[in-house]
């Protein structure tokens, strides 16, 4: 799935859909930008969850934190939007090094709880630094400026910029997990003790994956703040961390492209449900859908599809569906 011709085809197909998305009848451009930003964040999240088995409940740290940093810079007179976004990404990088260094000391549920709790620190800092962040009102982003002579104020121009960045980010993620680095992650995931005994410093590899994931999520979050012209407390709230978790698992853990599908389905469903009588209580439906996925379709949309496609062909490898683990190698073609 992740490497090879079939994967390349899936990647090209998703990109093609991305290219025509703004012209699809009824698709609001800001909705499309949000979707692509979340897709990139979910890909970044899969880099961590799918390939190290670490479930972070704190990715709003990077998503929302980078959004704040870039917006604060622009609000304080930085005229270059790309520069502000880069600063946001830099913040996400530094933050993920620090948070990762603490969190990778534990794994499993502990890792989830710890990242969740650390995320709350940033939430309250953003909540209390009203002069800088606007507190509960959020901080508006005055302008997106221009890039190569094109005005980023135009939503369509901005959309295609975001799409190009998200495609590059996804390519980077694919490249990372198919590299020797990715092979070490896979080895750790299969058997950490053995990977350690061969001589790999597994904590450092986990940290590296965490930093890559956090930094990419920060990039997505800075672009998201630009899309909505606002850095808000919502983006640093743990519900946002949870939403990224849900998109990734909904699409398919460890499939890289799956989370893109997951983000698209999640955002669309959320949008349609919000138009119904239950209004902003969309979590009734989102939570139910997620619970069903966890109970009966843990491979996610793309993972289940691949599983059934692969099941039809003769296989020479042993079935790798180990029910004891969160991260089963759903693709079966990574090697």
């Amino acid at each position, binding site marked *: 799935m992740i490497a090879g011709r079939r994967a390349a085809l899936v990647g090209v197909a998703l990109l093609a859909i991305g290219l025509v998305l703004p012209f699809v009848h009824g698709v609001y451009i800001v909705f499309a930008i949000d979707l692509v930003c979340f897709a990139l964040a979910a890909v970044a999240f899969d880099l961590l969850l799918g390939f190290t088995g670490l479930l972070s409940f704190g990715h709003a740290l990077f998503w929302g934190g980078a959004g704040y940093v870039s917006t604060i810079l622009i609000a304080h007179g930085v005229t270059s939007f790309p520069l502000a976004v880069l600063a946001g990404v830099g913040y996400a990088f530094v933050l993920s090094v620090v948070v990762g260094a603490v969190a990778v000391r534990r794994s499993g549920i502990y890792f989830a709880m710890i990242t969740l709790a650390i995320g709350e620190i940033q939430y309250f800092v953003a909540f209390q630094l009203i002069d800088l962040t606007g507190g509960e009102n959020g901080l508006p982003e005055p302008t997106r400026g221009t890039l190569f002579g094109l005005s980023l104020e135009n939503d369509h121009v901005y959309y295609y910029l975001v799409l190009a960045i998200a495609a590059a980010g996804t390519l980077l993620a694919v490249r990372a997990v198919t590299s020797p680095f990715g092979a070490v992650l896979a080895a750790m995931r299969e058997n950490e003790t053995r990977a350690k005994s061969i001589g790999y410093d597994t904590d450092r590899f986990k940290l590296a994956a965490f930093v890559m994931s956090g930094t990419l999520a920060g990039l997505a979050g800075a672009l998201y703040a630009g899309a909505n012209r606002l850095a808000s407390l919502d983006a640093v709230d743990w519900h946002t961390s949870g939403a990224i978790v849900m998109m990734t698992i909904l699409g398919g853990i460890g499939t890289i492209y799956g989370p893109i599908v997951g983000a698209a389905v999640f955002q669309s469903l959320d949008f349609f449900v919000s138009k119904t009588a*239950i209004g902003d209580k969309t979590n009734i439906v989102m939570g139910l859908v997620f619970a069903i996925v966890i109970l009966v379709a843990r491979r996610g949309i793309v993972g289940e599809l691949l599983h059934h496609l692969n099941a039809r062909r003769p296989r020479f490898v042993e079935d790798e569906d180990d029910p004891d683990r969160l991260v089963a190698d759903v693709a079966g073609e990574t090697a």
Partner: protein
Amino acid sequence: MSQLTPDYLLIQIFNGLVNGGFYALLALGLSIIFGMLRIVNFAHGTMYMLGAFVAYYGAQEIHLPFFAALIVAPLVVGAFGLLLEVTLLRRLYGLDPLYNLLLTFALVLVIEDLMRLVAGALGSPYETPAMLAGATNLGFTEYPTYRLFVIVVSVIVCAAVYVIIERTQLGAKIRAATEKPDLTRAFGIDTSRLVSATFAFGVALAALGGVLAAPNTNVQPTMGDSVIINTFAIVVIGGMGSILGSIVAGFALGVIAAVGAVLFPPIANTLIFIVMVLVILFRPAGLFGKPERAA
């Protein structure tokens, strides 16, 4: 800000014990559930919220008195927890514990938004029982009687649960099933019933916390949100699965947070998390925890 007199500090310590009582009740339930089921109940704060709502609607609809609610709400929410365990959580035993964390997270989303639909997003006040209204003279100050009541109840309940688990035959079974589930089954003990009962009991403790919180705060659907994250941090600090660790860390962090907030107000909301980070750095298994088993 008031003057930092010893009396003022003492009042803050009492306030800290009140909060600590809630933390301890919740962390205790979370820890018992974790010890037995190896799952982290993300919906623990939601059960706390439901406990408060049972008390609130009980008072509204059938004039259920507060003291009755202290019994009824844990029973109702405990029964609901039993239902969840039997119908949903049970399906995921034997899988990675993260799946149950995610399932209970989904439950948080569904139940919270359902309650927002039913009760509205804004809070409703719950009257402090007349018997506990007013203040009590503690020598150094007049302190709200209801808050003293919360401290007393939470200390008694925590102590009782501790004694049940550490000193009774039932507790021995629970500890056995926690340590060596296979061996316990081999001795003819129905661990599956014990598991269901433990989950129900754990969430009943959360519901009790919710009833106790009702007169103190506005009863509202999101009241469990911040509580659950604080509780997570406290069980990480105390050592996941450690009964004593949860109780001690609960009360201690309540006091530390309250006193810290006086000394340096901006840190009020984050101190617990900062302590958690320090504990992870210097004692990753928590203050009372055993080192993590190899994954």
